[in-house]
């Protein structure tokens, strides 16, 4: 019954979508190009319909309505309410409905927000966004309907993968999607702007907000995914260069480039074409991400659903959109009016350009690393696996000049600046960074060739961004984001260099020595929880007079039957103590892995700072 409500709302939304597309395309012939008010009420009704169907699905999950196939496949009556709700988007069908929900809500907000902009531009944007919505509605209704029925009604569901039952992961998809889907508005608006010939400073200051919104959500979404991997997967790492992680990183890199370009466009009126290309690329990358993840073409922990026929649909849809945008770009390129003011080599424009070049380089590395294996396999039937060494080898050497330009770039003036006024303070900071890095590298015997310059330049950037807080420039949001980035690089470096690990087999009562510490396996107990049983181990780490108690768990879920290891992590501002244990089939012994991960918490904090800069920038009318 309720199921049908959700289903019909989607069909109504589809009808509205067709109607809007026809109506807007008719209005292009009309010279006045004034949209009647009822289009906006139609958009509101459409959003409402999608909201209703989404709420219906949540409701079906909450009451465990197993006549719904999606609920049956992904839920269970014994699951806690929180995970029943998050189960709504923890699967293929539900997550697509979430995509659609965000698409329509963003369109609604866009129409509310753009009342003062040229009608023609608004109508065009609306038209393109509605085409995307239409495509997704078709996709959902005909290949992955979340409201499919099963009969006879099963009495119990099959459960949600326990590895997904985690608070960080419950909110990770919605946040990430807000970022992904936010890029759709940027895409539609870029196409609208190029056709209506309104790529100028006022377009930039309008679209800048959407770029910032997507960027902030994408950053936080990636952060949450990373935190989840760190706590749940039990390896003690936070970034694995897994194809699906890469797929979220690529739009982020592109969006970061776009962000800087749009700031420049807003201030100086240059880089119009480039801004359009980046807008189109960003959305194409988000869509490709959805394609790569959902089609099962990549083998990864994220491939929860795979069905090639769905893949074919998204692939065709994606390429139709890409073709439309390529043709529009080429045919309307002439509408771009080139700004005639001269820009000099040493200027902030150049700095932004350098930033963009580096971003494009990093993007290409990640893109090639992700897609090349697929291409190679199809063409040559050859299988290769691309792992972290590839990315590290290609990215790290280029990170060094990137850090340098990032340190000096923000302080260069627009239009023209002089080389001569090299700042004494900066030279002083640079010398200090060299000295500190030299002693540090010497002390810890880091052997990697590039670690010394890497330390020097990340410290340099770190100190320069701190110094900049006391400068005259009032752009506080930029300072926070850049400071956050320098902190991120520095913490990742220190974390990588100073991490220590020990792994051994222990029985209850055993003691081992590691560095200056003694690890004691105190006891183990079995506890029954709502939907799983758990073995809780108790370990004491004694370091001189300090003692730390860690309680990792081994959870045995019964629907579906799975064993997961929950690491126990004690965080402090200097280091994380990470302990995880596993059953081995050898009476009484457990495999115990203990890791000391320095500055882990600063990695999370720094990404939050980067995002905070974006949020602050949103609040200001003028940057």
């Amino acid at each position, binding site marked *: 019954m309720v199921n049908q409500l959700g289903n019909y709302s989607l069909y109504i939304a589809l009808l509205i979508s067709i109607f809007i597309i026809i109506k807007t395309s008719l209005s292009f012939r009309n010279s006045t190009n004034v949209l009647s008010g009822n289009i906006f009420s139609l958009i509101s009704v459409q959003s409402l319909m999608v909201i209703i169907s989404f709420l219906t699905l949540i409701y079906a999950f909450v009451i465990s309505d197993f006549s719904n196939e999606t609920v049956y496949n992904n839920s269970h009556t014994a699951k806690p309410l929180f995970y029943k709700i998050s189960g709504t988007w923890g699967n293929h069908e539900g997550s697509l409905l979430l995509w659609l929900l965000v698409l329509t809500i963003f369109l609604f907000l866009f129409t509310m927000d753009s009342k003062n902009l040229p009608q023609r531009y608004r109508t065009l944007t609306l038209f393109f966004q509605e085409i995307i919505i239409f495509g997704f509605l078709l996709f959902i209704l005909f290949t992955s309907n979340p409201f499919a029925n099963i009969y006879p009604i099963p009495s119990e569901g099959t459960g949600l993968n326990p590895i997904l039952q985690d608070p960080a992961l419950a909110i990770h998809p919605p946040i990430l999607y807000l970022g992904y889907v936010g890029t759709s508005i940027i895409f539609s608006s870029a196409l609208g702007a190029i056709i209506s010939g309104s790529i100028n400073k006022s377009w930039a200051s309008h679209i800048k907000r959407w770029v910032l919104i997507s960027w902030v959500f994408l950053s936080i979404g990636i952060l949450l995914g990373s935190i989840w991997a760190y706590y749940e997967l039990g390896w003690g790492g936070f970034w694995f260069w897994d194809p699906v992680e890469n797929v979220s990183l690529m739009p982020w890199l592109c969006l970061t480039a776009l962000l800087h370009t749009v700031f420049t466009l807003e201030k100086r009126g240059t880089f119009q074409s480039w801004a359009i290309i980046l807008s189109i690329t960003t959305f194409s990358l988000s869509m490709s991400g959805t394609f790569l993840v959902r089609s099962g073409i990549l083998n990864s922990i994220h491939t929860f659903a795979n069905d090639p026929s769905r893949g074919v649909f998204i*692939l065709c849809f994606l390429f139709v959109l890409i073709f439309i945008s390529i043709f529009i770009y080429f045919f309307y390129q002439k509408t771009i009016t080139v700004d005639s003011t001269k820009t000099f080599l040493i200027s902030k424009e150049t700095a932004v350009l350098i930033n963009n070049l580096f971003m494009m380089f990093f993007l290409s590395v990640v893109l090639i690393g992700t897609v090349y294996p697929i291409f190679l396999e199809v063409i040559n039937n050859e299988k290769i*696996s691309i792992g972290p060494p590839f990315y590290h080898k290609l990215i790290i050497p280029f990170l060094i000049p990137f850090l340098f330009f990032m340190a000096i770039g923000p302080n260069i003036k627009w239009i023209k600046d002089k080389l001569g006024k090299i700042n004494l303070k900066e030279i002083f900071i640079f010398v200090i960074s060299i000295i500190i890095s030299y002693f540090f590298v010497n002390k810890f015997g880091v052997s990697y060739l590039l670690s010394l310059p890497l330390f020097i330049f990340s410290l340099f950037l770190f100190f320069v961004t701190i110094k900049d807080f006391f400068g005259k420039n009032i752009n506080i949001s930029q300072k926070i984001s850049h400071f956050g980035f320098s902190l991120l690089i520095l913490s990742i470096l220190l974390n990588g260099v100073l991490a220590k690990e020990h792994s051994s087999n222990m029985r209850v009562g055993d003691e081992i020595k590691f560095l200056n510490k003694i690890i004691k396996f105190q006891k183990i107990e079995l506890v029954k929880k709502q939907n799983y049983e758990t073995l809780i181990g108790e370990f004491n780490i004694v370091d001189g007079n300090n003692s730390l108690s860690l309680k990792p768990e081994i959870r045995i879920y019964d629907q579906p039957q799975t064993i997961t290891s929950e690491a126990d992590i004690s965080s402090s501002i200097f280091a994380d103590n990470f302990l995880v244990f596993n059953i*081995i089939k*050898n009476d009484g012994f457990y495999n115990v892995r203990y890791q000391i991960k320095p500055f882990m918490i600063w990695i999370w904090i720094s990404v939050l700072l980067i995002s905070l800069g974006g949020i602050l920038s949103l609040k200001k009318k003028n940057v």
Partner: protein
Amino acid sequence: MSKNFKLISIVLFTLFSFFILLKGLDKSNIYSPEIEQRKINFNFKAKYLFSEEEVFINELLNNDGMSLINIWASWCLPCRDEHAYLLNLKSLNKLNIIGINYKDDEKNAKQFLSELGNPYTNIITDPKGINSIELGAFGVPESYLIDNKSKLILQKHIGPLDDKAFAKLIKIIQ
């Protein structure tokens, strides 16, 4: 470069990517052993883990009966999970278990074995991972049951061995 030329080359490149990805979708079920090439080339040399000597894998497969090739690494957590199954297989005494130590540090590999026990008859190293790719491996762990005489793969298992896979192996062996 003229504008048309740019447009055409971009369009061609996009079309190319499209067809590659489309074909890639067809292939996404390639992971089932039926479609997989069943006879593989064992004719390559590798170094033993516990000595400096080198050996052709072929030579390790030259008695009658069956062998199990298991690709593993000490850094691979699922390998720990499946280790007990390998020890079980060893205790059956019917199989020649050959371990391929994939992209690993020798010291860690030896420590891993001294911790968890050594189920392998012979272990060869594959520090660059090339030999494992030759064998058609997708990742670690992976196990192939091989008929020594015909050099055919009887059973291929991707990922850690579990109860189901173990039962299947036992069935074939007996």
